[in-house]
């Protein structure tokens, strides 16, 4: 856990100077609070000796100073620590992104499903608690606690020993217990919770069918049983949940009583001035502010470290595809592109997805690639764009191995309209410009006309500035596919790769779309990957892929 923490701190690259500034301010705020009570205790004890009022002036000034400055220091502390948390979050995001960027998409296969991706991003965001929960509180507690113990030791070493023991118990043992209890009750409840969640999701999703078949009561009984089980566990775990917090109160109170006892007996033996009896008691009582945030922090830290571990696991993967040391110049366009005896698979083990596949895309030719789902069609796209390198054989571009070019130059050859092409939660303009950042509005209008979206975009009140929504939710399926195609055309690449461009469209729409695309493709090389018939009649060749093998090259 400590190792992971240390690596996470390094990963977040929080600037050291800011970290110490923040920890220093946090410790100072605690110390000022303790000093306020201590000085006030001293003031009253000293006043009880009825000295001339002038003798109290310094103490009065000190009390006022701490009373006024403590909130200011606390305020600065909160600002600096939150600034630091936000800074480290920004860095973690950027660094995490930089690490996984070369992995996408082939090495993130298992993560492509939405919920996993969401969790992965959630894990990164959870790390914003790393500083506020994981690093700052223990350091602040250590510094401030040491200062309190030191101050007590200067007056009465015996009391300092008691205080140190109490702070250690409150700052180490109690948080450790709090974390352990939270963990074990979390573990106990986890199974019951996931069971219940699964039952409810199934019941709600299947609700129409259940009520229609009149079988809702059976399923409801299962939900009720799972709910009772979770309720039983939760009620039992409630008994231990408050134990750590109760112990924290107990430890602080008993320590104060102990310090008080030590002070009383020290004064009795003449080892301590009577003025300091109440003073160190108040110091001890207030010094527990230093360790107060630790139990809650310890409870949360477990989750943060678990998130961090998952983040690091991904970030540690090394990219399978890399640039050559001495790259060839970019291939001349339009190149011939071919797969030559290619065998490929994802990951280190397992069955190849493609076995000894040959496929040639000569300039200007239109090739259809068909086959049932799972036959390896999308792997062909991944190979062409060098998201994946072949295990055997090679991908050749203009007669040279694709691995000898820079990845960027390879990708410039292809305009991809992929099956899972992403529309970003931004404007139509930004989504298109991804393919060519310097494209003018006129060029955008032109390419939109070619995919027959020109009129539609012109009719929108915001035109090119219309937002497409999260994953293109604000546009229809057909418009979405057309936008993706427009983007691929705009890239100006010599080879157009269309991966299931008509998926999810009804036949009439699909057919119209294919007409438009093939017209817009002009003399470009086209690879049409599909499991549907639309457009295949206009291909020069159709290659059938099945079970990773080319079974038929017409």
């Amino acid at each position: 856990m400590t190792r992971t923490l240390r690596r996470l701190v390094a990963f977040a690259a929080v600037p050291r100077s800011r970290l110490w500034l923040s920890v220093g301010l946090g410790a100072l705020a605690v110390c000022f609070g303790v000093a306020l009570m201590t000085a006030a205790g001293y003031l009253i004890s000293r006043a009880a000796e009825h000295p001339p009022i002038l003798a109290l002036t310094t103490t009065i000034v000190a009390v006022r100073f701490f009373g006024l400055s403590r909130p200011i220091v606390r305020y600065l502390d909160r600002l600096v620590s939150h600034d630091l948390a936000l800074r480290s979050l920004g860095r973690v995001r950027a660094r995490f992104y930089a690490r996984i960027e070369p992995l996408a998409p082939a090495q993130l296969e298992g993560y492509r499903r939405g919920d996993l991706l969401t969790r992965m991003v959630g894990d990164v965001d959870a790390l914003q608690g790393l500083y506020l929960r994981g690093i700052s509180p223990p350091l602040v507690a250590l510094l401030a606690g040491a200062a309190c113990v030191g101050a007590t030791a200067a007056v009465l070493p015996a009391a300092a020993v008691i205080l140190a023991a109490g702070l250690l118990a409150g700052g180490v043992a109690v948080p450790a217990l709090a974390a352990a209890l939270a963990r074990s009750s979390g573990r106990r409840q986890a199974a019951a919770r996931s069971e219940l969640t699964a039952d409810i999701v199934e019941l709600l999703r299947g609700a129409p069918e259940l009520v229609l078949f009149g079988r809702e009561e059976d399923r409801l009984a299962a939900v009720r049983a799972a709910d009772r089980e979770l309720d039983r566990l939760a009620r039992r775990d409630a008994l231990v949940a408050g134990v750590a917090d109760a112990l924290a109160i107990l430890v602080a109170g008993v320590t104060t009583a102990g310090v008080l006892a030590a002070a009383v007996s020290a004064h009795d033996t003449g080892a301590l001035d009577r003025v300091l009896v109440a003073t160190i008691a108040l110091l001890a009582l207030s010094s527990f502010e230093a360790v107060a945030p630790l139990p809650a922090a310890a409870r949360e830290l477990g989750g943060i470290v678990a998130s961090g571990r998952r983040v690091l696991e991904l970030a540690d993967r090394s990219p399978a595809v890399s640039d050559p040391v001495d790259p060839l110049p970019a291939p001349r366009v339009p190149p011939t592109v071919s797969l030559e005896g290619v065998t490929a698979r994802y990951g280190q083990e397992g069955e190849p997805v493609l076995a000894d596949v040959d496929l040639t895309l000569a300039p200007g030719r239109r090739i259809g690639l068909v086959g049932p789902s799972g036959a390896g069609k999308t792997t062909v796209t991944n190979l062409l764009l060098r998201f994946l390198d072949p295990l055997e054989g090679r991908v050749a571009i203009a007669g040279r191995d694709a691995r000898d070019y820079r990845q960027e130059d390879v990708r410039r050859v292809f305009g991809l309209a992929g099956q899972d092409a992403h529309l970003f939660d931004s404007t139509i303009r930004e989504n298109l410009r991804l393919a060519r950042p310097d494209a003018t509005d006129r060029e955008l209008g032109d390419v939109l006309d070619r995919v027959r979206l020109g009129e539609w975009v012109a009719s929108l009140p915001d035109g090119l500035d219309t937002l497409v929504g999260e994953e293109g939710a604000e546009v229809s399926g057909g418009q979405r596919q057309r936008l993706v195609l427009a983007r691929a055309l705009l890239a100006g690449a010599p080879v157009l790769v269309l991966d299931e461009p008509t998926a999810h469209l009804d036949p009439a729409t699909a057919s119209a779309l294919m007409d438009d695309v093939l017209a817009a493709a002009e003399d470009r090389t086209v690879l049409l990957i599909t499991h549907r018939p639309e457009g295949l009649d206009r291909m020069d060749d159709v290659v059938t892929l099945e079970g990773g093998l080319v079974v038929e090259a017409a």
Partner: protein
Amino acid sequence: MRLLDPRLVDRGRAVRALFAADAALGVLAAFLVLAQAVLIARVAARGFGGASLADVTVPLGLLVAVVAGRAAAAWGFEVAGRRAAARVVSRLRIELVERRLRDRPAALDGAESAEVATAAVGGVDALETTFARYLPQAVLAVVVPVAVLALVASIDLVSAGVMLLTLPLVPVFMWLIGRYTERRARERWRALSLLATHFLDVVRGLPTLRAFNRGTAQARRIEEVSDEYRRATMGTLRVAFLSGAVLELAATLGIALVAVTVGVRLVEGGLGFEAALTILVLAPELYLPLRNLAAQFHASADGLAVAERLLDLADAPAAAARGTAAPPDPREAPIRLEGVSFAYPAREGVVLDGVDLELAPGERVALVGPSGGGKSTLASLVLGLAEPTAGRVTVGGADLARCDQVAWRKHIAWVPQRPTIFRGTLADNIRLGDPSAPDERVRAAAERVGSDAFVQALPDGYETVVGDGGRALSAGERQRIALARALLRDAPLVILDEPTANLDGENADLVAEAIEQLPHDRTVLLIAHRPELARIADRVVALVGGRVVEGAAAEAA
């Protein structure tokens, strides 16, 4: 913000019991706070006066006992709060699920049902914070200051006056600054969550970014965007944290004021040492519960938001009708849609727009048309899963909305577009259509839709466990299981929503054949995306843009 949604209180005996427990524990805790201060002051004052350790064993022992009492009270708050939270959420989720099933079975899509389930199960955590921490703190914030002031006043009226001077500053400043910044701070945090969404969007789009060589450019952009938000957020936090700072200033200034006035009056002999010390020890306790309350505010707001969301969902109006009349048998009575329109409450535009359609007994009608044309919605209305926004659905002249839905549903066998496979065995899943069907009939139904061979090939055959966590089924396999379910049902009205969408040619033909072989007195509503299925229908009706097109135009569509 309200302390608690009254709807929550209405529902929970657990909540009312919690209120009682919290109030009792709060009074006890306040009493113990006072006792602790008095005892600390007593021991210190005796020590100041030269007492030995033996002289103070009784108050010291009492002090430890009081502290133990405070710890026990804190534990009690936690136990009562968590138990109440568990009870309330348990009750809410069962109520929610029951009402959903009864009132709006068809209104949830996949994403929403997952969200509801997560809130209903994980909601306890959020409510626990509210119940186990925020509520007790709220009780303490009321009881403790009153008790502290009362005790201080009984010792020394002047000190109580000094405390009273600063106390009203607290709520006033909280209100003044809190009211202004709360909203802005919330906006900022919302902006921050938007930023998180942006990050998710970029990560999701990574393959696309890389394909266009725009992958590396985004890393800098992410840091820039994060940094812009950080700067803007810090601007708001600078103001937002001020309210906390002012609250704390009132607290520390109050302690300092009390200490200085008490100290000066001690010198002048107007006050005893023990009394002065008691007042000083009590001074921080006056403000502490309030400050803790402010600190718990946000965490508890999450809990209440979850509870409110669950309550809103549970209280959503019913979509399905709940009549009592016995519905006529569709074998004899025609089903008519009369000027039926339908619009989803959350969506713009109408899905169905004045549809008139009759399904005569024994007739096979194919419903075709482009996606989004309203075909599945029309089926939902006939199924009684939703009510038309205008017009009515009748069976043999009787308004479906006035009929007993449970009785009506007994007349129907239905295969939805995306059938649900429930956790359980394949046989159980098929038996959903008829729980009492013997094994032979289950197998016969599977055979008719071409499933028997693939089921037999499985090691466990019909006893194979499927659904979440079980063996995964392909879309085509799921569809055929659902078809077998419908065939087993043997109901007079059969509604099939794209039954062959995920099947290859051979299996699609088999399914078409099975539909064709249904007994002739069955009324069949067949929704088809593609025209192949339409040929087994007596009549083809097209639904385009929520309107009905029949005859030649339908064939064309």
